[in-house]
């Protein structure tokens, strides 16, 4: 419970600066308080100490704790407490010297290496490799042997010797931040490097730096004490903590107590630094993806056996799926799959499709479970059967393939090894027969034999998905749950994998539950489909009927949002808003807040999906269908004008003789949208990056309004930033999470344009309004917005400098269908209002066809085709 609350509190503060809040938590106050006490006790020792640290009292040697000497006396009758306080002066000063050295050497060099990259980084890595292998204590002993009495030199040396570890961490963190899209955006905005480092990089890596420095401070105390224990510290009779331990050791058989005070004070000080580091690390670390399976159990289910029998292979009735906290993810779900049938479960992300698929196999993350209803598989109720029975079905009766094909294979074993393991599990037999069978499975999924010897990282996405399918087939299951099996694949590979699934289904009579968000996949593979929205099935029926006559407004809205079904030049019938999180589901129909037809009745209760009028498919909406979405006047095709952007023979290559982009020519005219269409690896994004100056071209020329910008310097780029801007694919990465939207948007105006604050703020409000965001958005952090809203803000950031050309690098491919429609509409509106030109980079032919005037098709870094958009 407390962990949850802490997490919530941590989310409430500025992300990226969570360490500040972390230091104010009770767990951090304790070590901070202890360290403050130590510092005060040492600094004020001359005032506070009960006795002189060197005053001997031979009448009271080796006394235990008492009134005269709170912590007793040592072998010479000296007051232990006083010696501790004075000893602290030396130890803390030494730790401070080490920390200052480490920060000076380690942090500076780490940031420089991580940010500058190139030869400096290579030299840095080399030096760090060498230094990390130096035995620290031994080297310190050498230095001590030479300069023994100069403790400061020894401590500075210690600082230098432990710097490489910190420098490496700082470099890694800097490198990670430098690759963030918002850094790229800041560079395109024309911000100078020193500004990017201080305003965008340093605040993000402060957390890891504090953690490391805290741990190093503890380590410095330890080594300092160790050295004085060995007799290399301050000379007697001056006290140090380590020396006190050494003296205690010599009288260990007469007064063991003497070991306690210095040991405990020193141990607690190191512990305090360690705890501080832990607290800051826990607060700044990314949350773990999900908990291990079975760590928590869902609340006790209320399951009752079902009366009615079912002839379907899999039949779900009134299924409810709940997380351990009581959060309901899926409600009243009914779904049937017949033997050998392929059924689609369609919907946007966050609707509960994958959860439903995994619930059948009891593979829910974070201990979620089916808490009501029944899951009949081949006559057995899985919800009642218990985990052991379900485990018995996995692989042998029901199998699963998932979205990320490479991630679904164990990276340390070869393909043959992984397939063979399953074959052995299912069929046993000799080594040779297992191998033969495994190779047979690979042949079944159209993979050549050489693939068997490869590791997962040596496979393409399509190959990996075939391997995953082969593994799923090893147990000859009667149901395959295919969770977005083609989403991560390129269009041509996608078609091949779907074809393979169709063939296997026909050959083997295997039923498939196809979970997808893509209607074209549904249309090509399934006869029947269920449409899911926010945990409910809203409509089901034959795919043809769903596409032709959708009965639920959500289905209709989804179809209307598809660029392939829209008229070019018009607008998409976008559904406003986004899919709500389960915690924010409304009371009645979950779709009501986004539905143009919602009535008071819709908002108060949900119509059940179960009782369709005879002859029609079930739908959860009784409101009559809405009128078709209105069309906006067609966009005027642009007149031939002098080009805005010209690219001639562009070549980009990271290695010689391996160009990523090889001889590309293109032209963008004012007011037009040029589509750049290609599959992954075709070089389309690289072209965009070369135009905005994020990568260096190896050859060719880039002209903007006639001026050569191929190798533009920092000054020319800064001037260019007011003409040429970029919008990236990932809206979450393209805004700095630790700054408000307003400060991100105002930054280029203030730094590049040097506008006064008031003017800049007015301009920000203006631009936000233009992209459909309220002015209040300026005061909030990116974490407060959904993906679609963030992409609007990212577009606002591109527009704030009033450019003529915006490079849109897959601006909608990370978004759901309904949100994509909103963003595409927005881009078209902005073009019409502001006369913008777009270079629109995409892999989606339907989207390109919808928004672009002309298109260039890329394959393998070369232009394969170009011309006006086919209609």
């Amino acid at each position: 419970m407390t962990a949850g609350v802490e997490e919530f509190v941590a989310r409430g503060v500025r992300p990226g600066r969570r360490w500040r809040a972390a230091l104010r938590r009770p767990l951090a106050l304790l070590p901070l308080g202890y360290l403050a006490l130590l510092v005060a006790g040492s600094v004020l020792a001359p005032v506070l100490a009960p006795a002189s640290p060197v005053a001997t009292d031979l009448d009271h040697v080796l006394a235990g704790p008492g009134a005269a000497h709170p912590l007793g006396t040592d072998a010479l009758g000296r007051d232990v407490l006083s010696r501790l306080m004075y000893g602290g002066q030396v130890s803390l000063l030494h730790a401070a010297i080490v920390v200052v050295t480490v920060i000076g050497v380690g942090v500076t060099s780490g940031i420089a290496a991580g940010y500058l990259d190139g030869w400096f980084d290579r030299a840095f890595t080399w030096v760090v490799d060498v230094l990390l292998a130096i035995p620290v204590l031994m080297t310190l002993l050498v230095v001590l042997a030479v300069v023994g009495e100069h403790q400061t030199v020894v401590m500075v040396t210690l600082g230098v010797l432990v710097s490489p570890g910190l420098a490496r961490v700082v470099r890694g963190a800097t490198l990670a931040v430098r690759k963030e899209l918002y850094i790229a955006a800041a560079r395109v905005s024309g911000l100078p490097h020193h500004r990017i480092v201080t305003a965008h990089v340093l605040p993000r890596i402060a957390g890891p730096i504090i953690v490391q420095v805290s741990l190093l401070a503890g380590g410095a105390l330890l080594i300092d004490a160790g050295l004085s224990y060995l007799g290399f510290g301050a000379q007697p009779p001056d006290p140090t903590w380590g020396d006190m331990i050494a003296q205690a050791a010599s009288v260990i058989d007469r007064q063991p107590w003497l070991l306690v005070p210095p040991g405990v004070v020193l141990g607690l000080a190191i512990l305090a630094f360690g705890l501080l580091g832990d607290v800051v690390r826990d607060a700044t670390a990314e949350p773990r993806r999900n908990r291990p399976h079975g760590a928590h159990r869902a609340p006790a289910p209320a399951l009752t056996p079902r009366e009615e029998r079912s002839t379907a292979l899999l039949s779900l009735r009134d299924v409810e799926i709940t997380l351990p906290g009581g959060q309901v993810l899926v409600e009243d779900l009914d779904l049937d799959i017949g033997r050998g049938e392929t059924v689609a479960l369609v919907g946007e992300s966050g609707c509960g499709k994958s959860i439903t698929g995994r619930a059948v196999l009891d593979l829910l993350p974070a201990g979620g479970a089916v808490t009501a209803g029944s899951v009949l598989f081949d006559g057995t109720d899985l919800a009642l059967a218990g985990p052991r029975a379900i485990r018995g079905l996995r692989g042998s009766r029901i199998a699963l393939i998932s979205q990320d094909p490479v991630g679904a294979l164990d990276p340390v074993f070869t393909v043959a090894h992984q397939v063979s393991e399953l074959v052995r599990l299912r069929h046993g037999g000799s080594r040779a027969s297992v191998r033969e069978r495994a190779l047979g499975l690979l042949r079944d999924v159209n993979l050549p034999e050489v693939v068997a010897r490869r590791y997962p990282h040596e496979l393409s996405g399509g190959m990996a998905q075939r391997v995953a399918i082969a593994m799923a087939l090893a147990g000859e299951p009667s149901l395959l749950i295919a969770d977005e099996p083609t989403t991560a694949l390129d269009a041509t590979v996608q078609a091949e994998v779907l074809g393979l699934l169709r063939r296997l289904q026909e050959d083997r009579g295997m039923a498939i539950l196809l979970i997808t968000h893509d209607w074209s996949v549904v249309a090509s593979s399934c006869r029947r489909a269920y449409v899911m929205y926010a945990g409910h099935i809203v409509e089901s029926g034959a795919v043809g009927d769903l596409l032709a006559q959708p009965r639920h407004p959500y289905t209709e809205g989804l179809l209307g949002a598809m660029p392939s079904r829209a008229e070019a030049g018009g607008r998409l019938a976008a559904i406003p808003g986004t899919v709500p999180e389960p915690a924010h589901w409304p009371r009645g129909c979950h779709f009501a807040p986004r539905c143009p037809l919602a009535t008071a009745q819709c908002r108060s209760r949900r119509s059940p999906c179960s009782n369709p009028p005879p002859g029609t498919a079930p739908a959860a909406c009784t409101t009559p269908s809405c009128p078709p979405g209105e069309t906006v006047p067609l966009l005027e095709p642009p007149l031939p004008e002098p080009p805005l952007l010209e690219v001639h023979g562009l070549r980009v290559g990271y290695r010689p003789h391996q160009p990523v982009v090889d001889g590309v020519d293109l032209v963008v005219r004012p007011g037009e949208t040029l589509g750049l269409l290609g599959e992954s690896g075709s070089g389309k994004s690289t072209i965009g990056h070369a135009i905005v100056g994020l990568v260096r071209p190896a050859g060719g020329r880039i002209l903007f309004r006639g001026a050569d910008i191929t190798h533009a310097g920092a000054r020319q780029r800064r001037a260019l930033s007011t003409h040429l801007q970029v919008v990236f694919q990932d809206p979450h990465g393209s805004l700095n999470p630790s700054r408000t939207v307003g400060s991100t948007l105002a930054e280029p105006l203030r730094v590049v344009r040097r506008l006064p604050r008031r003017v800049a703020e007015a301009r920000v409000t203006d631009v936000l309004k233009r992209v459909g965001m309220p002015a209040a958005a300026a005061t909030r952090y990116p974490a407060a917005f959904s993906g679609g809203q963030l992409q609007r803000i990212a577009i606002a950031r591109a527009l704030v400098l009033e450019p003529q050309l915006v490079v849109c690098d897959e601006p909608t491919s990370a978004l759901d269908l309904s949100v994509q429609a909103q963003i595409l509409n927005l881009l078209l509106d902005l073009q019409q209002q502001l006369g913008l030109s777009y270079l629109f980079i995409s892999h989606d032919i339907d989207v390109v066809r919808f928004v672009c005037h002309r298109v260039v098709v890329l394959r393998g870094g070369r232009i394969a085709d170009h011309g006006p958009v086919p209609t």
Partner: protein
Amino acid sequence: MLRLIAHRLVVSVALVFVVSLAAFLLQSAAPGDLARAILGQNFSVPAYEELRHQLGLDQPVLTQYWNWLRDAVHGDLGSSPISGLSVADEISHRLPVTLSLIGCATVVTTFAGVALGVVSAVRGGRIGRVVDVLSLVGYALPSFWFALTMVTLFAVTVQLLPATGYVPLGTSPAGWARSLVLPVATLALPGIAVFAKQTRDAMLDALSRDYVTALRANGVPERSVVLRHALRNAAIPVATLVGLTFIGLLSGTVFVESVFAMPGLGGLAVQATSLHDIRMIQGVVVVFTVIVVAVNLLVDLAYGRLNPKARIR
């Protein structure tokens, strides 16, 4: 992989050069030289010059270094001007003690830490918290202080084990083992907790991956998922930790040998430092560096075997 090892070898050779040269330069920068150290407080200038000449100290530093390096390559690390003993002989006498200590401590740390980490990743809950507390305690306790406490408990109070000293393996294997229990326990404690934590994190990470879900969905038994697939993946980051732990133990052994009066290299280095016997400690540092280089190479090879992505095709 081959490139990685070649790179590592180049770095290693550079490292041995840098360390030994740095020791030499430091020595020449030091106030008062070897000759003065040998002669003590009262000496005559001609005798001093004579000795400097004998020791080769009147030559430029780099020439001195070259002479030393030439001898070192042939196994001659010079002799101590203080004790007159051959540095190489002295080191080879003491090397077995230190290697026994560090070797045993590494093995104990690795096995205990990995086992604890796996259990706490799979079972979670209470064992996880024990690991957390243990790792903080292991980090915070000064090893020499912990060693003294162990001596007080097990050698002075209970008299179960010898408080100090070392019995060579050849003399009495049982005695060797008994003499190692306390020092190895002291050395291993902080490392076990680090290993357990790292193993747990790596295991939890592996267990949260898609391939684990896929394996479970394909009906692979949980035992195989955890011990074959997850552990094998978790071993990749843990392997690098073995090297780092070993290098860390080279520092720890200095304190532990001192507390338990073990005649090892750590003790030799401390003794040489307090006598300002730079020749001797320089020899020890070079030997330590060579050990580090060898261990790093082994770790790289193990890493390459464990991680197919690091292997050459």
